């Protein structure tokens, strides 16, 4: 049975496969060539063409004394580094700075009181003296009514 199967397999293996059409080679490779050319063109526009220009511009700018420019750049970097290291940006400092001073608190309270008085006096003017009467405790009000 196994031998029979092997013979069958061999027979199948000997069946020649159809050949790829010859004209496909150029068609497919030219299609891939277009893709490759487009890729290179894009890459060239983006990077390869602009890189030498940038290099030329940089060398023209730095040409008289590149070491002096490098030294200046190093000084700037040092200044930035010192500036960053000297700055204290810890949360404790921020908290301290954001807390208002005692004078400011007193001032604020005075302003609040003044505002309350102003609002209070306006309300008094609008409603008349009965308002002050109403402010008495309810128990006293009842006693007064009984006595009257």
């Amino acid at each position, binding site marked *: 049975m196994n031998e029979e*199967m092997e013979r069958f397999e061999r027979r199948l293996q000997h069946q020649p*496969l*159809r050949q*790829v059409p010859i004209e496909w080679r150029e068609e*497919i*490779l030219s299609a*891939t060539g277009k893709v490759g050319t487009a890729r290179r063109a894009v890459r060239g526009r983006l990077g390869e063409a602009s890189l030498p220009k940038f290099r030329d511009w940089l060398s023209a700018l730095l040409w008289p004394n590149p070491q002096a420019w490098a030294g200046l750049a190093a000084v700037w970097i040092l200044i930035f580094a010192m500036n960053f290291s000297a700055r204290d940006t810890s949360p404790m400092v921020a908290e301290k700075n954001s807390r208002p001073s005692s004078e400011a608190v007193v001032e604020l309270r005075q302003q609040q009181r003044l505002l309350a008085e102003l609002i209070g006096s306006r309300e008094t003017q609008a409603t008349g003296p009965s308002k002050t009467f109403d402010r008495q405790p309810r128990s006293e009000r009842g006693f007064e009514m009984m006595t009257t």
Partner: protein
Amino acid sequence: MRRGPDLRRLYDGHSQSLYAFLLNLTRDENDTRDLLQDIFIKLARDPKLLAGVRDERAFLIRLAHNATIDLIRRRGTRDKTREQFTAEGISPFAPDANPDEQTFRVALADALAELPTEQRAVVHLKLWEGLTFEEIANTLEIPQNTAASRYRYGLDKLRECLRPLYDEMKKAE
């Protein structure tokens, strides 16, 4: 500058295998051409695709297999009668002047078309690419046992389909 793969060399080295494999799976010459072109365009677009690949043939066959499965899925949702159509499509075998041999090849092509795509892929790679089950498993990214069982089922079905013709030809020999 990093250079891409040599597409001409790749085409000359592998296009015949890819063509036969794709044609056996799609049974359509236009689809085969489109898929073959897509594979090479993919390689042209992404030259790093083959970087570090040890077995170029296996990698390209995997690309071809995945592309075919994608195509069949796309078609499957759109056209349910596609499989019937592909069964009547082009044979993956070269025509033969001998009528008996030609009859056998036509019958074999029809029997192969009856197999599910996954079994057909394994049978093709084993019989006409000469890959081992381990290589097939690596290429199609399936377990080795699955590759072996798909092959056995596929071969049994082919034998069943071709038995009358095969027995007759054996007697004649």
